[in-house]
């Protein structure tokens, strides 16, 4: 029987497939489905820029309009990946510029992007619309100016927490003089001052602007004028919120904010002064997203604000909110889906710790839609974790950071094994988990047994032995990203579960007991894994049994990369060669 759907029919059916996971599955069915799918894919996502060759990607997807790439491992966010490790955007930009000039959107995370890259983007893609750079570095405001001036159809320009060489605010004046098509503009991570007149004029000629995130240097006294020129904003990130205003200015600002009838998201609010909280009253009832994580306000003022935010779905706040404040959130913010509580840097030795596990318990009780949590806390208890798990079996993302390494349940002095067991047992849809506190191998046995949908797991200062890793690699069926630091496990589990690693995107291990010899064995055993040893000293000069400081293992069809710096050693597949450093940079 040789029945094939005509290409056109398949193409039409596939056009309803958005999720790349579905498209990936579909492309594996047979050759004709592979061909049809690849010709129709518009949005391409590459979770590890070294997993595949950019030219191959460019060739495979002729209709590509959007490219999303991720570079460095997640732990780079916490300075665990040395500078110069890699993650260069250039080869991708070059490949796309040559073959996919109709590319419209580029989103990069944790990559090194140079001004050269930005200039190439500006010069090569005539319909370029969207540039989102998250946690990227290597470029200056000159590169931004090139994008602003050349991409005439630019809709989104977002710099999220990037490390930019800020040469001044001139780049803002490079947008086209006639009306722009800007929909979102985020320069919140830049340091330098911008010229107010440039910004005001830009707003006046950007009628489609829906999202505006200013940097800290934009002072409070000019905010009112900016808002008057952009009353259609849906997302606003203010600049500094601490300059002194006279009563008339305050009243004008209050009015301007109340005119933002479509505003749903508010952020920035750097150094928010308590006396300005009433200014925000009018926007609170409409807000679905509020980022107070740079606002150094104390609990009573936070309560004042949050008690008015009944529609809030996403809240980021600092630990000044205290248990009391979170109780208010539990009472008032019934729509809450995501909560992040960040440490304010208060000394860990302080006696009067006002944010405890109780805060999270309250929110888990009161906010029935809560599904994503990031919570920094000094210490925790099993009882609290069990209660939280019982209250909220719908967690998809649970990241608890008990800031004291190896801290046991402070009431019982027991490890937090039972607490996390409750979490993974009850939260059947858990996709992402970060564990902390004192944990034995038992905790990881529980995770391996129960966390079947878990995709990403982060571990620090935990476990007793190899068993920990073995439980995880053999049990967690959906595991894609595993990152581990300072845990006492070694080679056996890694080698026994080598095959698992090819089903995952990546594994990061630092300050563990993995030996150089095991790395070699692993690499030779698994042809499609890059085993990168990140170490100041050439592994060759040390015995095979010596532990390696950092390893990063990831699956790839592109072979060992060619751009490693001196301190990164890709273990060669040929045992004779040992390690190679094919550095041509």
């Amino acid at each position, binding site marked *: 029987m040789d029945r094939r759907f005509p290409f056109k029919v398949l193409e039409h059916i596939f056009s309803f497939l958005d999720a790349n996971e579905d498209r990936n599955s579909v492309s594996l069915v047979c050759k004709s489905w592979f061909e049809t799918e690849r010709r129709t894919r518009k949005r391409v996502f590459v979770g590890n820029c070294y997993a595949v060759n950019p030219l191959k990607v460019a060739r495979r997807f002729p209709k590509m309009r959007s490219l999303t790439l991720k570079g460095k491992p997640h*732990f780079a*966010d*916490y*300075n*665990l*990946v*040395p*500078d110069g490790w890699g993650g260069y955007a250039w080869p991708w930009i070059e490949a796309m510029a040559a073959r996919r000039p109709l590319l419209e959107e580029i989103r990069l995370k944790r990559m090194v992007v140079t001004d050269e890259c930005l200039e190439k983007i500006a010069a090569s893609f005539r319909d370029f619309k969207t540039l989102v750079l998250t*946690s990227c*570095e290597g470029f200056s405001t000159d590169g931004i100016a090139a994008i602003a001036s050349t991409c005439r159809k630019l809709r989104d320009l977002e710099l999220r*927490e990037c*490390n930019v060489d800020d040469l001044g605010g001139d780049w803002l004046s490079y947008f086209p003089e006639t009306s722009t098509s800007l929909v979102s503009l985020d320069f919140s*991570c830049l340091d330098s*001052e911008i010229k107010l007149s440039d910004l005001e004029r830009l707003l006046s000629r950007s009628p489609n602007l829906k999202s505006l995130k200013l940097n800290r*240097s934009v*002072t409070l*006294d000019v905010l009112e004028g900016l808002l008057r020129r952009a009353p259609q904003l849906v997302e606003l990130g203010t600049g500094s919120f*601490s*300059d*002194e*205003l*006279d009563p008339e*200015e305050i009243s004008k600002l209050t009015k301007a904010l109340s005119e933002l009838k479509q505003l749903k998201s508010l952020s920035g609010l*750097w*150094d928010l002064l308590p006396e300005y909280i009433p200014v925000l009253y009018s926007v609170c009832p409409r807000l679905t997203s509020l980022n107070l*994580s*740079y606002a*150094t306000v104390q609990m009573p003022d936070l309560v004042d604000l949050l008690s008015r935010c009944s529609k809030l779905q996403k809240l980021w706040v*600092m630990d000044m909110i205290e248990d009391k404040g979170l109780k208010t959130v539990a009472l008032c913010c019934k729509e809450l889906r995501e909560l992040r509580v*960040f*440490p*304010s*840097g208060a*000394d*860990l*030795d302080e006696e009067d710790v006002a944010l405890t596990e109780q805060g999270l318990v309250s929110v888990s009780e009161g906010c029935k839609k809560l599904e994503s949590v990031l919570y*920094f806390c000094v210490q925790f208890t099993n009882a609290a974790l069990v209660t939280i798990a019982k209250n909220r079996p719908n967690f998809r993302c649970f990241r608890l*950071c008990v*800031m*004291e*390494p*190896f*801290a046991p349940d402070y009431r019982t002095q027991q490890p937090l094994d039972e607490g996390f067991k409750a979490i993974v047992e009850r939260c059947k849809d858990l996709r992402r988990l970060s564990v902390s506190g*004192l944990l034995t191998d038992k905790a990881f046995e529980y995770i391996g047994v129960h966390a079947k949908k878990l995709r990403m797991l*982060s571990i*620090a200062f935990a476990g*007793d032995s190899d068993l920990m890793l073995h439980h995880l690699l053999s049990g967690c069926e959906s595991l894609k990203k595993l990152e581990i*630091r*300072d*845990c*006492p496990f070694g080679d056996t589990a890694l080698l026994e579960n080598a095959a698992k690693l090819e089903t995952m995107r990546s594994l990061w291990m630092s*300050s*563990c*007991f993995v030996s150089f010899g095991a790395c070699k064995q692993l690499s030779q055993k698994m042809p499609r894994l890059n085993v990168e040893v990140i170490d*100041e*000293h050439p592994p060759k000069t040390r015995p095979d049994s*010596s*532990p390696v*400081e950092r390893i990063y293992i990831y699956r790839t069809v592109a072979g060992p990369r060619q751009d490693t710096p001196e*301190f990164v050693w890709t273990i060669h597949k040929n045992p004779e060669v040992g390690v190679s450093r094919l550095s041509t940079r």
Partner: protein
Amino acid sequence: MENVGVCDEFVNLKATELRLGLPGTEDGCEEEKQKVSCIKSNKRALPEPEKNNESKTETASPPKAQIVGWPPVRSYRKNNIQTKKNESEGQGMYVKVSMDGAPYLRKIDLTVYKQYPELMKSLENMFKFSVGEYFEREGYKGSEFVPTYEDKDGDWMLVGDVPWEMFVSSCKRLRIMKGSEVKGLGCGV
């Protein structure tokens, strides 16, 4: 409480460990003389806070044990929070600025600036005036506006007379004086 120095192999590694950190960040990485890798050798004890090697620099309160990348907070966020910590310690970082003849006060954060020219530029922008040129012996010339500040002792000084760091730590508030009032101020230290 076990001292981490038990793991011999690791002591050697630690001595030669790479120093990490994105360029330009000051999140304490340069100040860490030792990076505590808290690997236990099968003992379930908390790591002893290693006080001997910690350099007490100008970072406000000495942290317990400096562990690289812990707690896991992004450098971007850490840098912003660090500034806040300094402010809340009341070291005079946020100061009020008034200008003679202007009806309103401003507040500025001195830690945002690295030297006098930056501060001057910011003040000029804020109050829409120009400050003239600073001469060490004669003070400001070329403008009727003169930036002055009140220091910790209650004395009114000319902005620029003392080294920047000293200024930042002793300035309580700023006042941009106008015209005749200025003559009363001494110049130079």
